[in-house]
């Protein structure tokens, strides 16, 4: 049963082939048995999960089920959950039990989904390997010597390791797509503003976006249907109506124009990874799509632009952690200044402190124009590159990452090397576009992700292309269990 997709579980629950309590119990048992290897969960509350499953079974029996009623879903530990610890991977929030649910959590509850547990992540979502978590690193189920990617590495590993049928993640610069690629699953970062940010611990507010992580595009569509939509309590949430993302999954790709940015296929891309992407593009061509070379001329500027804007916004957002109202407080502060500075010294990890310092510098008097304003101007140029491409093509495709998953510890002491991991994903957040990662093969038994980038609010098209690709390939059906059987 643990290999069933969300769509199959929905069908089975609807037909009363099995109960939500049975499904939930099975995943809780797998977590208890296997997560000592992966460390993909920070918190699991079995009693609450089983109670929610029992309530879902009653709803289903009464014929009152919604699309996800009874489906267990893991949530990144960045979404506030009423009465359940929400740590954001940080010592700062190790003792934080929110008094409310994030809108994303509320929506899943309203749909009848079961909260299976809260997943591990880089501290405050700042990282690409899930090694900076206060709760220790998550390991990649394909090979536990490898990182799962990050920052939503716990969600990616939980889905890849079949400890949850699906999960939520958040993506500020690649944090859904890169771990999805490294763990061989499907992940979608929606358009900025498509999913509410209320109750999602803020990192960089003009970039953050929540999205689904699952085995298939079809499952991502089912989750996005529950997540997407206007939230009056998030003033950056879009008022544009969400569509049924399942309705157009099977549409033909005939005539689809796919742009291939030459900057995404140049030096820096691992050759074997590049070959997987080329093979995947051929599979789309075989379905009637046309491949068009395009250019994103400001690509080389995305990393420096991002590493001004994201830290600047982070330094502002994280100023709320002062040891007064909630979260960690240092012991025996001698005065208010000592309370603030030592709480933040002890509560934050090294990467978070680095980004706060860089952001504070970029926003400080005398440097604001040279750094922050300059980066905001170049951000517009980067977005314009994409808009120009979308005059010629319907979607853009390329690799999600420059290469497959790297070893634990390989980059954890070299921030710049870690930042380079996100070279193909950052620009999508700067431009506010939707992006996906779709399993597209293996290099040395390590999964490779194909990235698809769409026009603003064109998530349905991305899911359609990914679904058609998954009808023609079986990369998304491969699991680590299967790999260990020697089939790769």
């Amino acid at each position: 049963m643990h290999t069933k997709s969300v769509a199959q579980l929905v069908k089975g629950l609807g037909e009363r082939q099995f109960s939500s309590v049975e499904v939930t119990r099975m995943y809780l048992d797998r977590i208890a048995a296997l997560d000592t290897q992966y460390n993909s969960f920070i918190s699991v509350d079995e009693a609450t999960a089983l109670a929610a499953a029992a309530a879902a079974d009653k709803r289903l029996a009464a014929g009152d089920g919604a699309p996800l009623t009874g489906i267990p879903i893991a949530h990144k530990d960045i979404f506030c959950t009423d009465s359940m610890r929400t740590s954001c991977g940080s010592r700062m929030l190790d003792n934080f039990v929110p008094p409310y649910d994030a809108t994303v959590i509320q929506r899943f509850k309203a749909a009848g989904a079961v909260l299976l547990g809260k997943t591990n992540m880089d501290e405050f979502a700042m990282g690409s390997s899930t090694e900076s978590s206060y709760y220790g690193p998550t390991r990649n189920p394909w090979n536990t010597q490898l990182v799962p990617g990050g920052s939503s590495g716990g969600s990616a590993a939980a889905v890849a390791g079949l400890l949850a049928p699906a999960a939520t993640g958040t993506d500020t610069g690649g944090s859904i797509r890169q771990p999805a690629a490294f763990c061989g699953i499907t992940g979608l970062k929606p358009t900025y503003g498509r999913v509410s940010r209320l109750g999602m611990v803020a990192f960089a507010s003009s970039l953050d976006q929540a999205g689904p992580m699952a085995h298939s595009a079809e499952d991502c569509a089912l989750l996005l249907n529950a997540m997407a939509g206007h939230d009056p309590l998030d003033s950056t949430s879009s008022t544009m109506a969400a569509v049924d993302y399942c309705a157009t999954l099977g549409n033909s790709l005939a005539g689809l124009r796919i742009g291939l940015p030459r900057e995404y296929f140049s030096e820096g891309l691992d050759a074997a990874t590049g070959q997987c992407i080329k093979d995947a593009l051929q599979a789309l061509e075989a379905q009637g799509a046309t491949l068009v070379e395009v250019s994103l001329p400001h690509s080389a500027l995305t990393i420096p632009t991002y590493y001004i804007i994201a830290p600047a916004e982070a330094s502002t957002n994280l100023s709320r952690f002062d040891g007064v109202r909630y979260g960690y407080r240092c012991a025996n502060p001698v005065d208010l200044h000592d309370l603030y500075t030592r709480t933040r010294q002890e509560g934050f990890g090294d990467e978070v402190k680095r980004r706060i310092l860089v952001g504070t510098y970029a926003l400080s008097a005398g440097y604001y124009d040279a750094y922050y304003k300059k980066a905001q101007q170049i951000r517009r140029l980067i977005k314009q590159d994409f808009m120009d491409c979308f005059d010629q093509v319907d979607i853009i495709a390329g690799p999600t990452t420059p290469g497959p998953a790297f070893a634990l510890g390989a980059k954890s002491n070299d921030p710049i090397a870690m930042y380079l991991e996100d070279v193909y994903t950052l620009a999508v957040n700067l431009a506010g576009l939707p992006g996906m990662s779709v399993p597209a093969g293996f290099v040395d038994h390590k999964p490779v992700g194909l990235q698809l980038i769409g026009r603003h609010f064109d998530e349905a098209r991305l899911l359609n292309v990914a679904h058609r690709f998954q009808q023609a390939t079986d990369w998304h059906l491969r699991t680590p269990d299967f790999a260990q059987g020697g089939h790769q």
Partner: protein
Amino acid sequence: MAIEQDDIAKIAELARIRIADDEIGQVTARITEILQMVDRLQAVDTRNVEPMANPLDAIQRLRPDAVTQGNRRDAFQAIAPAVENGLYLVPRVIE
């Protein structure tokens, strides 16, 4: 852009983060690497380019000035490090 340990100490003070004396050298080296990396932006001609704060160029939406949320002081204070009589406690500020 060269940055000195004194600059880092000043930024850390602005950010209200204490940095131990034996760590400031290492922190300065790391921040310097990052600032050198982002310095590439300075060479780009951005004359007449409007800064972009929101990827959809959306403007702040206003809502009616109406009470929509109830008072939940007790719930919020239950998770605070130190409270008394409905007030948050911090070390003495005024002697």
